């Protein structure tokens, strides 16, 4: 079993192969456990919170991820040179790269995460699905057969039940992808999908799958400990997505009753245990009409892990580190959730310009503290938000006794959060949090594109507000100390007309 290699291997020096808020999260957890931390960073990330917080830093390459954060050799070499005994990959970058996990181990270090075999099994969509089917788990009904005759494909469509999605076997993205809603349109759409698949990917082979158009994204946090047991840490709902990018996540899901919760939890735990899964992982499902279907397993810590931590009272990063050292966890056999937690991802983008990325120097930031508020932040004032990496600059997480109170708290926290220097998606988040479909908890993965695709209309000012802005303009201090003092009357304060 893969677990035997993990028995009692304590380490005191941890490399972090990541950046931003997750690097800060890992450094803090490791330091609290008494470890020394080494940040493996790119050349442009010296002005970040993680760089300041880490005990040691090693520059592993240039800004482009391929030259640094995605470079296996550079990360391993950097960690070795600093005397690291283990590496935590965070999420994104190399976190789900089986070769990286294997090479870390081959170099004599510990990979804080699942085994390379776990990552390989679930990283490949076909082997993952096969494993789930073998475990008796629910997969989306579909047809992946060799018989590509139109008669057979239509028969399969009827078997699956409309609507059916027809997609290129060899491709990804939107090309060669058709939604078939009834038998009358089927022939034409399948032929068209085959033509597109042929011209785009050089193979006309298509797959059929049941099209879930009103599905919710439900995922179960699982954790495999050193004893070989997998625990379910219950579910999160992440239906608020834009182009498959999650924006708001919560725990637990407002959509599951106790029976369904127990069922989905068992399914996730069971399929992970059958794979001898070690460490943190997330099993993602689509839920529609009371039926859930397996989507994929993310073999790593998840961005939205804090909502689970808040409702269950656990620390998943520390659990990862303890497990990597072969130490047992003091967790109950079954978790009792308490209250409700919501996370909003803060992206550096302009809500009023259709989510256009916003880069620049973070001039000032205020994260309003209070009971049940948590901020995961990767940058300090003075740091540059560049276009080199993911635009997520922070996460805001709240906990309260009920879902509606958590929503109210989140709206309050976001209204008190101040970020100067880059635009953020806070105005958009506020709109989503106040939308009746979100409030009712009935939103599906189509929610965002249905209601928010057009973006927000611009901000309007009243005449008295314009007068106030003039006062601010005259008296506000200048971030760049260019000689203009905040107290001195501005020479151009009267440039704005007083209408």
């Amino acid at each position, binding site marked *: 079993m893969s677990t035997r290699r993990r028995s009692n291997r304590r380490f005191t020096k941890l490399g972090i192969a990541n950046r931003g808020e997750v690097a800060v999260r890992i450094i803090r957890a490791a330091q609290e456990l008494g470890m020394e931390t080494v940040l493996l960073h790119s050349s442009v990330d010296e002005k970040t919170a993680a760089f300041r917080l880490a005990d040691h830093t090693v520059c592993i390459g240039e800004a482009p991820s391929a030259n640094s954060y995605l470079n296996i050799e550079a990360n391993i070499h950097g960690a070795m040179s600093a005397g690291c005994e283990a590496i935590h990959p965070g999420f994104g970058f190399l976190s789900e790269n089986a070769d990286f996990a294997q090479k870390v181990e081959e170099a004599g270090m510990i990979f804080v995460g699942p085994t390379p075999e776990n990552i390989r099994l679930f990283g490949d969509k076909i082997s993952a699905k096969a494993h789930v089917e073998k475990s008796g788990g629910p997969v989306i009904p579909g047809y992946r057969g060799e018989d590509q005759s139109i008669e057979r494909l239509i028969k399969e469509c009827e078997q699956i039940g409309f609507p059916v999605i027809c997609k290129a076997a060899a491709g990804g993205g939107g090309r060669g992808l058709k939604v078939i809603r009834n038998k009358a349109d089927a022939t034409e759409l399948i032929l068209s999908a085959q033509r597109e698949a042929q011209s785009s990917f050089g193979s006309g082979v298509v797959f059929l799958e049941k099209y879930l158009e009103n599905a919710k994204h439900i995922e179960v946090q699982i954790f495999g400990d050193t004893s070989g047991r997998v625990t379910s840490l219950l579910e999160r709902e992440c239906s608020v997505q834009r182009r498959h990018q999650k924006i708001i996540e919560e725990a637990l899901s407002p959509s599951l009753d106790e029976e369904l919760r127990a069922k989905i939890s068992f399914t996730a735990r069971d399929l992970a245990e059958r794979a001898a899964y070690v460490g943190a992982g997330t099993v993602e499902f689509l839920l529609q009409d009371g039926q859930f279907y397996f989507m994929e397993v993310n073999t790593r810590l998840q961005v939205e892990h804090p909502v689970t931590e808040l409702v269950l009272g656990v620390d998943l990063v520390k659990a990862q580190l303890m497990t990597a050292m072969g130490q047992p966890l003091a967790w109950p056999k079954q978790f009792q959730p308490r209250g409700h937690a919501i996370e909003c991802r803060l992206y550096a983008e302009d809500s009023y310009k259709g989510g256009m990325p916003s880069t620049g120097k973070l001039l000032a930031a205020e994260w309003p503290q209070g009971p049940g508020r948590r901020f995961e932040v990767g940058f300090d004032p003075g740091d540059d938000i560049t276009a080199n990496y993911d635009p997520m600059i922070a996460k805001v997480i709240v906990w309260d006794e009920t879902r509606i109170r958590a929503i109210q708290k989140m709206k309050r926290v976001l209204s008190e959060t*101040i970020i100067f220097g880059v635009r953020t998606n806070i105005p958009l988040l506020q709109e989503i949090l106040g939308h009746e479909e979100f409030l009712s908890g009935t939103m599906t993965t189509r929610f965002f594109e249905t209601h928010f695709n057009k973006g927000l209309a611009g*901000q309007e000012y009243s005449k008295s507000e*314009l007068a106030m802005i003039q006062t*601010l*303009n005259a008296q506000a*201090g200048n971030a760049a100390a260019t000689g203009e003092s905040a107290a001195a009357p501005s020479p151009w304060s*009267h*440039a*704005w*007309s007083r209408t």
Partner: protein
Amino acid sequence: MTYVEVEWSGKTVRVPALKHQGKLWFHWQGETHVVEVLASRRAGGGSGKSNPGVIAAPMPGKVTQLRVAAGDEVKKGQALVIMEAMKMEYTLEADRDGKITELNAKLGAQVALGDVLVRVGEA
């Protein structure tokens, strides 16, 4: 965080505000705002060193008022054109005494940064 005290609805309110590179950032009624401001009220495509008499748009925006016509005599400091940009009004003034020799600004027209709107010929 730096603040500016303003009077609002009979109360003194502390507004977080900061200027940086021609932009004013402020947090107002639960939301962060940013408006473009100018380093100089002398128009000239933002360069600050404009040619005398050449009045150009200091930012992209819309012409909302024309205060002069071609051929008018104007005094230095006189309002020529009112523009709106980023929901703010901006007044373009004559930078010298003289006569309007060219009036390119059209009411309601969108203009780009640096577009020459008015030329003031030497008196």
